[in-house]
C-alpha cells in the first residue's frame, strides 16, 4: 500500500511538471513586457524595500517562542554528537543565534554567515583551532603532546594539520567542544563542493559540533552519502519562521530595478576581488577615465589599450580583450557606439558609486 503511495507521489510530480510545460507551450505565452509596468525609480524602490511593513509580527514571535521548548532537546542531541540542520521557510538566523546564546553558553560558538559571497574556510578553521587551544589550556590538563606543536602558530599550518588538531582525542565529554553555527550552509559562499568537503571534515571532528540552516529546496544535493551519514550526521528540524530574509537577501538584485540587471558597487567589488591585479588595474584606468570625463560617452578601446600597455598591464590586444570579456560577462563594463562611430567602453555605475568602488579597491 505504501509502495503505491510512493508511486503516486512520483506520478503526481511528473504529471505536474508536464502540465506546467504544456501550459507554457500550448497556452498563449503571455507577451507582456516588464517595461509595461510603470517602474518607479530605483532609488525610491530601494528606500521602500528597506522599510517594508512586516506582517504577522505577533504570530512570528509566538512561533519563535514555541521553538524555545525544543532547545533542551537540541542541546541533548548536540551533546550526543549529532549535528542540527534547520530548514523551513523564513530566516532562521535570529532563531539559531538565540539558541546559541541562551542554550550553548558552556561552549564556544563561532558563527559563519554562509549567505555572504566569499568565505575563507581556512581562516575559520584557524579560528576554531585557536579557540579550542585556549579552551584546553584553561582546563588545567593541557595535553602535553600538543605543546610542541602549539609552538607553531596555527596560521602557518596546513589544513590537514588543523583538522587533525580539531579531531584530537577527547579528554572529557564536554570539555573542548566548539560549536559552529553556519547560517545558510547552502549559501553562495559555501556552495562549491570543495568547501562542502571541508565543512564535512570539520563536522566529523570530535571537538566540533555543527548547527546549520538551509533555505534552498535542493540543498541536500550538495552532499553525498558519506558526508550525510558519517560526517555531518544531521538531525533534521523543520522550523519555519516566516521571518524576512533581511540579511540573507542583501546581495540579491531587486528584480524590478533595471529589469534585474543592475549591478551595485558592492557586487562589482566582489567580482573585482576575484580578478587578477592586472585586470583590476585595467578596470581602474577605465573608472578613472570615466570619473574625470563624466560627460563623455565612454573610453574608446584603442585609448584603453594604449594606456594599459604604457603601464605594462597588458602585452597585446588579445590579453586586453580577455580582460574585457571577463568584465562584460559580469556586467562590469558595457559598450556603446560613440557619436563618431567608435565603440566606447563605460562602467554602468553612478559616479559616487564608482568613487566608493575605487576607494575600496585601493585599500
Amino acid at each position, binding site marked *: 500500500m*505504501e509502495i503505491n503511495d*510512493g508511486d503516486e507521489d512520483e506520478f503526481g*510530480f511528473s504529471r505536474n511538471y508536464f502540465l*506546467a*510545460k504544456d501550459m*507554457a*507551450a500550448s497556452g498563449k*505565452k503571455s507577451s*507582456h*513586457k*516588464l517595461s509595461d509596468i510603470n*517602474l*518607479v525609480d530605483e*532609488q525610491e524602490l530601494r528606500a*521602500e*524595500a*528597506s522599510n*517594508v511593513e512586516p*506582517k*504577522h509580527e*505577533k504570530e512570528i514571535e*509566538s512561533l519563535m517562542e514555541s521553538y524555545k521548548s525544543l532547545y533542551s532537546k537540541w542541546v*541533548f542531541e548536540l551533546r*550526543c554528537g*549529532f549535528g542540527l540542520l534547520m*530548514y523551513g*521557510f523564513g530566516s532562521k538566523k535570529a532563531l539559531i*543565534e538565540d539558541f*546559541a546564546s541562551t542554550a550553548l553558553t*558552556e561552549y*564556544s*560558538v*563561532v558563527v*559563519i554567515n554562509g549567505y555572504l559571497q566569499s568565505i*575563507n574556510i581556512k581562516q*575559520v578553521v584557524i579560528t576554531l583551532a585557536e579557540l579550542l587551544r585556549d579552551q584546553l589550556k*584553561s582546563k588545567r590538563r593541557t595535553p602535553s603532546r600538543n605543546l610542541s606543536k602549539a609552538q607553531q602558530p596555527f596560521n602557518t599550518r596546513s589544513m590537514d594539520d588543523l583538522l587533525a588538531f580539531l579531531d584530537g582525542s577527547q579528554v572529557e*565529554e564536554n*570539555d573542548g567542544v566548539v560549536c559552529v553555527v553556519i547560517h545558510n550552509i547552502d549559501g553562495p559562499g559555501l556552495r562549491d563542493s570543495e568547501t562542502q568537503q571541508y565543512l564535512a571534515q570539520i563536522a566529523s571532528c570530535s571537538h566540533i559540533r555543527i548547527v546549520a540552516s538551509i*533555505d*534552498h*529546496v*535542493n540543498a541536500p544535493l550538495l552532499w553525498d*552519502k558519506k558526508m550525510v*551519514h558519517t560526517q555531518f*550526521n544531521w538531525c*533534521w*528540524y523543520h522550523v*519555519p519562521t516566516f521571518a524576512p530574509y*533581511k540579511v*540573507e*537577501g*542583501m546581495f540579491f538584485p531587486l*528584480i524590478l530595478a533595471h*529589469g*534585474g540587471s543592475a549591478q551595485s558597487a*558592492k557586487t562589482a567589488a566582489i567580482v573585482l576581488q576575484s580578478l587578477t591585479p592586472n585586470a583590476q588595474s585595467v578596470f581602474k584606468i577605465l573608472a578613472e577615465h570615466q570619473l574625470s570625463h563624466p560627460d563623455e560617452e565612454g573610453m574608446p578601446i584603442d585609448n584603453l589599450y594604449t594606456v594599459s600597455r604604457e603601464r605594462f598591464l597588458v602585452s597585446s590586444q588579445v590579453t586586453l580583450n580577455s580582460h574585457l570579456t571577463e568584465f562584460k560577462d559580469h556586467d562590469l563594463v558595457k559598450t556603446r557606439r560613440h557619436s563618431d562611430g567608435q565603440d566606447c567602453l563605460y562602467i554602468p555605475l*553612478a559616479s559616487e*558609486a564608482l568613487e566608493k*568602488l575605487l576607494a575600496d579597491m585601493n585599500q
Partner: protein
Amino acid sequence: MAPSATPIDSSPSSTSTSVDNNLQPFFVLHKASSGKSERKSTGSAKTRRRIDLSPSLQMNAKKLEATRVEECGDDDCYVNLRVEAFEIVWSKIESTIKNVLRDVNTNVFNEIHRWVCQSFNTIMSSRTIAFHEATQAFPIIADASSKQLFTGLVLTKNMEFVDDLLTFEELGLHLRSQGCRVANLSSLDFTAKSGINGCLRSLLRQFLMASLDAADISILASWYREEGNYGNPVVVIVEDIERCCGSVMSDFILMLSEWVFKVPVILIMGVATTLDASRNILPSDVLQHLNPCKFTLGTPTERMDAVIEAVLVKPCSGFSVSHKVALFMRNYFARQDGTLTSFIRALKIACVQHFSMEPLSFILGGISSEQNEQVIQDGLLLQIVLKHAFDLPSYVRNKTGEHNGEIFTHGLSEMKKLQKHWGIVVLCLYEAGKYDKIRLLDLLCEALDPELHNFRTSDTLTKIEEDPCPFSSNYRYHQQYLRKGGFIGRALRKVRDLPIVQLCKLLQRWEELTVDVIKIHEKLKELSPVLKSENDKSSKEDMTNISKRQASRSQLYMEDTKAVYEKATILMECMVRDYMQPIESIPLHEVFCFKNVEKLQSALIGDPRRRIQVDLLESHIILRCRCCSGSGNTLLPTMHDTSIMYNLAQEHGDLINLHDWYQSFKSTVLCPRRKRKKKSKQSPSKKRKILTEPENLSEAAIQARFCRAVTELQITGLIRMPTKRRPDFVQRVAFEL
C-alpha cells in the same frame, strides 16, 4: 545612486555591532563560559564515578549522590544521566556492530593478508640491490616484466561506497596488526585538481606522519630504508577506484611500479562494480603493470542480517525498537537508501530520540554496564524512578497495587527474561527461515508485532483449525496473515518441507540456541534421539540398495519421520506462542523501547523540497493567525507576501511572466477586503497609515514588496531569475509536491 551601494536593508533596531557581524564572513559569538562548564563537568565526573562504582566504593558513592541531588535540580541531573546512558548504550551497540562486521570479513581479511605476504616475498626474492643503488634518489632500471605491481581487487558487491569505508579501515587495521605498513587513500586524494601531488602527499602524510611541502616519492624510498620499516610490506589501499580520476590514478600506478624495487608497494583497490572497472578507468599500458588478484566481500544483506542479529535480537544493550519503528526502518532501508550505514544511523537517531524523551531511559545505562538493578537500589534515584515508572501506560494497563522499588526491579528482571526468550525464538525461526531465504529484518518486524502476538495467544489459531468459521473476523485475519506469507508462517512451513538431513541440522542448531531455556531445551532433547536414529537409517539406506525387503521398512520409516516433522513443527509453534512475547506487550517496556516513528522520521529524513513549498502554500496554518485562516483557497492581502506570490505562481506554467505576476500580486494586495480586515486588526498607530493607504500604498511600496518576495523565492530556490534570452520571465523550478 549612492544607496545602490548599500544593502537593501539596514534595520534601525539592530545595533551596529550586530550589523557588523552580519557582514563578517564569520565571527566568534561567545567563548565558553568557564564557570558553568566547570560545574557541569564536575557533575558529570561524579555521575561517571557512580556508573563505574565498585562495591568498595559504594558507600562513598552514595554520599556523593546525596550531595549531587541537593546540588542540581531534578531535570538537570536527569539530562546528564541520560546523556551518559546514551553514550554507554551507543558505544556498546557500536562496538558490537564493529565486531560483527569484522567477523563477517575475517576470512577475506586473512586471505588478503596471506596474499600480501606471498606477493611481498615474490618482490623481495627478485630484488637484490647493492647499497649504492639503494641510496640513489632515482628508481632502479629494470625490465618491464619485473616492474609489476601486485594489485588486490576487492569486489565490494555494493554500489554504495559508504558501507565499505569501515571495511577498508578495518582491513587497514588488520594488516597493520600483522606488521604491514598501511596507507588508506580515498577518491578525494585522486582529483584532477591536485593531481599526482595530492595522493603522494597523503601517502607521505600517513607513512611519515608529517606533512611536507615538496612531495616526492624518493622521500618514501628513504623512509623505507629506515630501521623498523625495511623488510615489511607496504600496502596502499584505495577505497573506491570508480570514483577516482583515471589519469591521476594511472600516473600514480606508473610511478609506484617504477619504484617497486625500492619501495615494495602492494596495492589494494576497492571495486564496486565488476572487474572491468579497472579496464575502463586505466589505459592498457598502465594495466600491464598490474598483477591482479581478486577478492570478494560479503553482500550487504548478509552484513545487515548479522548486525540485526547482534544488536536487536540477541541481548546487547537493552535498547529496543517497537514494531512500527522497525517497519519504518525496514522501509527506509529498502526504499530510501539501501545502505547499512544509513540503517545504523537511523538506529542511532532512534536511540538518541529515546534518551532525550524518555525520562527513565537512564536506567539502560546502568543495566548495560552489567550493574543490573544496582542503580535503582542506590536509593538516590528511587523516588524519581517510582514517580515515573508507575505512570507508564504499559504499567497502568497491566498492574495495580503497591508501588515500590521491589515491584519495579522485579518488573525489570522479568522484562529481561522475556526479551531473552523472545530473541531465542526469533533466532530459531531465522535458522529455519534461512532455508527459505527469509531475511532476519523481515522476520524481526513480524516478531515485534504485538497484535499478531495477541492473536496467536488468544487461542483462536487452534480453534480455527478445528472448526473453521469463515465469517469471523479473526478467521479472516488469520487467513490474511497466512496468505500474505507471513514470514513466521513461512518459516514454520519450511520446517515441514525440509529434507531429513537438514531437519537434523536445524534441530541441532535449535538445541544450541536454546541452552538457556530449559523447558524448550528438554523437549528438543526428546526429539533428537529419535531423529538421530532416523538420520542413521537414512544414511544407511543411501549406501545400501533399496530392495523389496527394505521397502516395507521404509514404509515404517516414513511414518516415523512424519511424526518427527509433526513434533518439530508443533514444538516450534509452541515456542512462538509461548515464548515469543514482543517487547511492546510487556509492562515497563517504555523504558527500553523506542516507539515514536514520527519523531524518528522527521529527524532522519528532512524533506526540504516538499516542506518548504507546503510552508509557503499553507502559511496561515503554520502561523495560526486569525486574519488569514478560514479563507479557503482565496488569497487574502493579509497573507505573507511570499506566500501570496508562490500561490499565484501555481497558476503559471513553467515560465512566469513577470508583468502578469506583478499585476495579480498587486490586485491581491489591493483587494478591497483588505481595508476592512486591517482596520479591525491593526493597532491605531498603523491604522492611520492604512486609512490613507489606497492612495498611499504607492506603486513603489507594492513594487518593493514584490521585489522582496521574488528575492525570497530565489533564496529558497523555487524560481530561477530571468535570463538574457527571456528577460520578462522567471522560471519555476519545483512543480507541486
